[in-house]
């Protein structure tokens, strides 16, 4: 089947990188965009570590070689070029808008983590009923979420678009992604470092720059 790695503005440069199962990457012009694809001898693609890393490697290389790239989600295959062309044509307006949005930008990821155990509510203040404890923990969390807001807002200002979600675990206060112009990545990191200094109680884990995975979904609204 045809395996899709990414879409790019035409004309796309094809980097010399190998994809899934060490197969080569090719470009096909379909409608207004170029599709970076490979041919894999499989009916379906299992999400093994090797396959995930191969997909990421190709998307990284394509993003480094082109200005406007939409990474494809892992594991998407098409029976032939006509099937892929039909899928692209059906979404061409949205794809054009998404390509315009990510042009010249990379993505930075941020996880803000709270201290594992709260400093308050643990200091053995006598009465300690269950509800007192829960109230203390809840207040602690609200406070921490406010702090996470204080970190997110100034970073979002530096980004062309941003997305965030509040954490899935008590320690993870904020998980966010920022779409940052390539020439502003250093400024973004410097601002992040300042914010980290302002909040020594939080752990700020910044990742990237990534290809703009989080801003390639056509349903994602900017900011």
């Amino acid at each position, binding site marked *: 089947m045809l395996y899709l790695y990414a879409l790019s503005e035409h004309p796309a440069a094809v980097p010399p990188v190998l994809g899934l199962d060490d197969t080569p990457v090719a470009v096909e012009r379909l409608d207004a965009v170029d599709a970076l694809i490979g041919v894999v001898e499989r009916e379906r693609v299992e999400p093994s570590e090797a396959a*995930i890393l191969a997909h*990421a490697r190709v998307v*990284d290389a394509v993003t480094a070689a082109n200005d406007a790239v939409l*990474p494809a989600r*892992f594991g998407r*295959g098409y029976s032939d070029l006509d099937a892929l062309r039909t899928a692209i044509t059906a979404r061409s307006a949205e794809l054009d808008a998404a390509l315009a949005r990510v042009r010249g930008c990379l993505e930075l990821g941020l996880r803000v983590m709270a201290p594992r155990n709260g*400093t308050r509510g643990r200091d053995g203040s006598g009465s300690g009923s269950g509800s007192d404890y829960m109230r203390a923990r809840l207040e602690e969390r609200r406070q921490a979420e406010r702090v996470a807001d204080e970190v997110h807002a100034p970073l979002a200002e530096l980004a062309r678009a941003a997305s965030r979600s509040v954490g899935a675990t008590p320690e993870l206060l904020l998980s966010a992604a920022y779409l940052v112009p390539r020439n502003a990545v250093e400024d973004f990191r410097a601002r992040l470092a300042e914010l980290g200094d302002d909040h020594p109680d939080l752990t700020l*884990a910044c990742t990237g720059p990534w290809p703009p995975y989080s801003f390639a979904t056509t349903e994602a609204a900017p900011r």
Partner: protein
Amino acid sequence: MTEHLPAAQQDVTLLELVDRVLNKGVVLTGDITLSVADVDLVYVGLRVLLASVATLEQPETGGA
């Protein structure tokens, strides 16, 4: 796109990479997709990883 990073940061980076590759990125209609069971399996592994990251992030001071 990685630099010299401490172990915990590398784990966060791997977690974020897998999350992006599997859950983000453009999806077109009419494609052949992964089965949900497969993706769930990957996430079992990720939860283990996330737990280890949380442990590594824990400051060494302040034991109870």
